[in-house]
C-alpha cells in the first residue's frame, strides 16, 4: 500500500507564489487578531485563582453564580469544565483580601449552599509577578529554540535553508497563536509546552525535506533548483504524510480521551502539525529558493558515510 505512487516529481514550486501570498495573508490575519482580540491568557499568565469543584448532581451554574455574588465574588467567571458535574470558577487577582485564601473561602461558600458537599478537585492560585515572568520566560524559550535551530541548520546545511527553516517555524508558531487569538481559546502553560513541542516537530519535518534537497543537488547535475526542490519534496511526500497522519491520529485520541486539562495542548498541536506540514513543503523550501539556493551552495560535500556498517550506531 502507498499513499502516493508517483513516477514523476510533482511541480510543487509552481504554486510557490500563491503559497507565499496565502501565508502572508494568514500571518497578517493572525497579527491583526493579536492586536484586536489579544490572547486569552490563562491563569498561569494572568495570575488569579481557579477553583474546580465537583458536584454530585449536574451543577446549576446560575445558583453557583448567585452564591459567589453574595460571597462578594461578583467578578467570578463560572463555567462547566469537561462534564456537567464539574464547575470551574475563575477569580481575577484582587488586592483587598489575602489572595491565598480565596480558594478556601469560595469552597466554604459553595458547601454552605449545597445539600451535598462539593468535592475540591483543584485550586490554583498564581501571583501577579509569576505570570509576568512566565510570559517573559516563555517568549525567551521560543526565541532560544529558534536561534538554536537557526545556528544548527546553518552549520549542518546552509544559511539560506536555515533562514527558510526558521521562517517556517515562526510561521507555524504565529499561525497557531493566531488560532488561539481568533477563537479566544485559553492559552495556558500546557499550550506553551505544545507550541514548543510544535517547534520540535515542525523542524523535524523541514529537516527531512532539506536533507533530501541537499542529497538531490549532489546526485543530479544540470538540473534547475526548481526541479531539485520539486523532486526532493515529492520523494519525501509519503513519509511526510504518514508521519503527520500517525501523529494526528494520537493527537485526536488525546483530544477526545485526554481530558479537559489536555484540550488546549491537543488543539495547539493538531492545528500546528497541519500548518507545520504545509510550511515545511511550501514556506521553508520556497524561501530557500527565493533566497537563491543553488547546487554550488551544497558543495563541497560533507563526508557521507559510505562504509556500510559504520553508519549504524
Amino acid at each position, binding site marked *: *500500500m*502507498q499513499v502516493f505512487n508517483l513516477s514523476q516529481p510533482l511541480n510543487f514550486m509552481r504554486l510557490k507564489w500563491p503559497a507565499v501570498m496565502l501565508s502572508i495573508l494568514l500571518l497578517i490575519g493572525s497579527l491583526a487578531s493579536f492586536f484586536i482580540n489579544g490572547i486569552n491568557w490563562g491563569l498561569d499568565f494572568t495570575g488569579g485563582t481557579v477553583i474546580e469543584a*465537583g458536584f454530585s448532581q449536574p451543577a446549576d451554574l446560575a445558583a453557583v453564580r448567585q452564591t459567589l455574588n453574595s460571597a462578594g465574588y461578583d467578578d467570578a467567571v463560572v463555567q462547566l469544565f469537561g462534564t456537567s458535574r464539574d464547575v470551574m470558577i475563575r477569580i481575577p*487577582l484582587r*488586592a483587598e483580601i*489575602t*489572595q*491565598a485564601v480565596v480558594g478556601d473561602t469560595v469552597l466554604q461558600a459553595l458547601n454552605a449552599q449545597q445539600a451535598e458537599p462539593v468535592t*475540591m*478537585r*483543584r*485550586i*490554583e*492560585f*498564581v*501571583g*501577579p*509577578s*509569576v505570570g509576568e515572568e512566565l510570559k517573559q520566560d516563555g517568549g525567551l*524559550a521560543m526565541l*532560544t*529554540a529558534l536561534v*538554536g*535551530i537557526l545556528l*544548527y*541548520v546553518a552549520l549542518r546545511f546552509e544559511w539560506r535553508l536555515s533562514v527558510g527553516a526558521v521562517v517556517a517555524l515562526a510561521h507555524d508558531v504565529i499561525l497557531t497563536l493566531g488560532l488561539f487569538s481568533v477563537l479566544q481559546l485559553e492559552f495556558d*502553560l*500546557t499550550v*506553551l*509546552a505544545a507550541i*514548543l*513541542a510544535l517547534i*520540535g*516537530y515542525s523542524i*523535524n519535518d523541514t*529537516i*527531512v525535506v532539506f*536533507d533530501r534537497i541537499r542529497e538531490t543537488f549532489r546526485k543530479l547535475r544540470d538540473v534547475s533548483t526548481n526541479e531539485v526542490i520539486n523532486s526532493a519534496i515529492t520523494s519525501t511526500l*509519503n*513519509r511526510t504524510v*504518514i*508521519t503527520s497522519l*500517525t*501523529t494526528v*491520529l*494520537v*493527537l485526536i*485520541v*488525546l483530544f477526545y*480521551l*485526554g*481530558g479537559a*486539562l489536555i484540550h488546549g*495542548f*491537543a488543539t495547539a498541536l493538531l492545528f500546528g502539525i497541519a500548518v507545520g506540514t504545509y510550511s515545511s513543503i511550501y514556506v521553508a523550501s520556497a524561501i530557500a529558493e527565493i533566497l537563491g539556493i543553488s547546487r554550488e551552495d551544497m558543495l563541497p560535500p560533507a563526508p557521507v*558515510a559510505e562504509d*556500510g556498517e559504520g*553508519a*549504524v*550506531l
Partner: protein
Amino acid sequence: MLNKNPLWRYILVSGMLLLALLYALPNLYPQDPALNISATRGGVITAQTQLALEQHFTAAGIASTSDMLSNGQLLVRFNSTEDQLQARDIATTQLGDDYITALNLAAATPAWLTAIGASPMKLGLDLRGGVHFLLAVDIKAALDKNLNDMAQTFRANLREDNIRYRSIEAEPATGQVLLQFRTAEEVTKAEAALKQRDRALIFNANVEALSLQFSFSEQQIKDIRDYALEQNISIIRNRVNDIGVAEPLVQRQGSDRIVVQLPGVQDTAQAKEILGATASLEFRLVDTEGDISAAIDGRTPPGSELFYSRDGQPLLLEKRIMLTGDHISGAMSGYDDYSRPQVNIKLDTKGGVMLSAASKDAVGRRMASVFTEYKPGTEIAADGNRVLVKQQEVINDATITTRLGRDFAITGINTSAEAQNLATLLRAGALIAPVQIIEERTIGPSLGQENIELGLTAIGWGMAAVLVFMALYYKAFGLVANVALLGNLVLIVGVMSLIPGATLTLPGMAGIVLTVGMAVDANVLIFERIREELAEGKSVQQAIHLGYDRAFATIADSNITTLLVALVLFGVGTGPVKGFAVTLAIGILTSIFTAVVGTRLVVNAIWGGRRLQSLPV
C-alpha cells in the same frame, strides 16, 4: 555478509530491553493508601504501639497490614483511601501529639524488585493529588536586617576603640549605613579602625560632610541572599516535617524562590498557616527610666523604642538587642515547679555567650521578648505583590532572676496552648527573611486518579491506532516497527523509573502519547527509503542496507533539533512542563535506538542475507 549481525549485538540489545522491562515492572503493581507514623522528640514506636493501633483499626472495622520500617517508622497499609482517612483520624486521636501521622501512597513493589533498586516512577502532584507552593523570599528584608546588624556592630566596635561618633544609622532606602562624626580626624581614625577589624568592608569616606558610608559588596549581597534562602529552606523543611507529610519536596528555585510540594495534603489552610508564619524573636531590656507617656506623644528617649504588648500595653524597650532568635537552637513548652506553663529555650554557643554578657549587669531588670511577624498588608508593591508589613509585639516580659546562659526559660505565659504555640514557632527557628506564597496549586485526590486514568486510556488508544495503521500500511515491516514501538514504551518507562529526578506528570503522559505518534517517524523514513531503493532496481539486500544507511543521517539531524527544543523546554519550564520535556527527551533518544538499532536487528534476522525477490514492505 550484507545485513547479518554478530550474535553479541542481539544479546546486548535484548539485554538492554530486558533490563528496562525489569525496572519498568514496579509500575505494574498498585500503590496502597498508607499511613506513615513516626515519633517526635525522641519518642519510639514499639510493638505495643503497633498492636494497640491494629486493635483500634479492627474495632472500627478497618482492615490493615503494617510493617515496621527500619528507621523507627511504622507503615500501615489499607485497602481504600476512605479507610486510610478514617484510620488517620483514629491514629491521631489515639497517639496524641508525640507522633506524626502522615498520609502516604506506599508502593507494593515485591521485595526482589526492591532489592535490585527498582521502584515505580514518581508521580507528579497533578497525578497523585497534593499541594504545590511557590514561595518568594523577601531578600530586601534580609538585607535591611543585615544593615541594622552592621550598624550595631560599628557602634560597638567604635565604642570599644574609644572613637567618638555623632550617629550611626542604617538607611534601608539607600542600602547604606551612614556613620557621622564631629571631626575629620575621627572619620579617618574610624575608617582605619573598622577596616582593621575586617578588610573586606568597603567604606566611602566623605571628609567634608564628616561622614563615612558603608554598603555591601555584590558578593556580600549574594551571600546574604543565599544564606537567607538556605535558612528558609531548612526551616521550612522542619515545619513541613511537623505537618506530617510523606515525601515532601522543599527546593530552591532561581535566586529567591522556594518550591514546596506536599503530596497528599488536602487541607491547604493548615499548611499555609504553618508555612506562612514567619516569626522572629528578639530579646531586649525594658527601659524603666524613660517616660512612656512622652514616648507615646512621639518623644521617644534616645536609645529606646516604643513597643506594645499583645493586650495593647505600651512598653519602652532599649534599642540594643540582647539576642536575636536565630541563635535559638531549641524551644520546648513545659511547666515550672508550680505547674505554670513556660517555654524552655536553648541557645547555640555564640548566643549563650552573647546573652550571658548582656545579662551580666542586668540581673533584676526586666527582659522583654519581641515577637515579629510579617504579614501581607494592603499596599501593593511595584511587582504586583502585596508589601509585607512588619508587625511587632511584646509577647512576654520577665524579670531576669539570674545571669542567663545557654539554657533559660520564659515564664508568665497564660495558657499551655499558648506556650506550645510559641515553642513550635521558636523551634522551627526564626526566619531571617519573610516569605510570601506567590503560587499555589492544589489537586484533589479524585482529580489525580482521574488524570492517571485519562492518561493511560489516551496512551492505550493512541498506541493501538498507530499499531494498526503501521501493520496495515507496511505489512510485515510494519509489525517489526510495532515491536520497536512497544520496546520503546518499555524503555521510556524503564528509564523514567530509573532516573531519580524524573517525575511523571499529566503533560508528561501527553508527551508519551506524542512520542508514540512521532516515534514511528524514524521507521517510516527507513521503510520509505527501502521502497525507493527497491523501485530504483536495487537488490533486496542492497535496498535494506542503503535504506537504513541513508535514512540514518536524516534521522539524526531531525532528532537533534527536536532534542534541542526539549532541552530549552526543560531549562525554562517548571513542574508539569519540565515533566513533559523529560518524557519528550527520553522518548526521542529511545525511539532513535529502537527504530535504528532495534528494527535493524529484527529485519536482518528475518530477511538479511537471504536470496529474496521482494520484500513485504
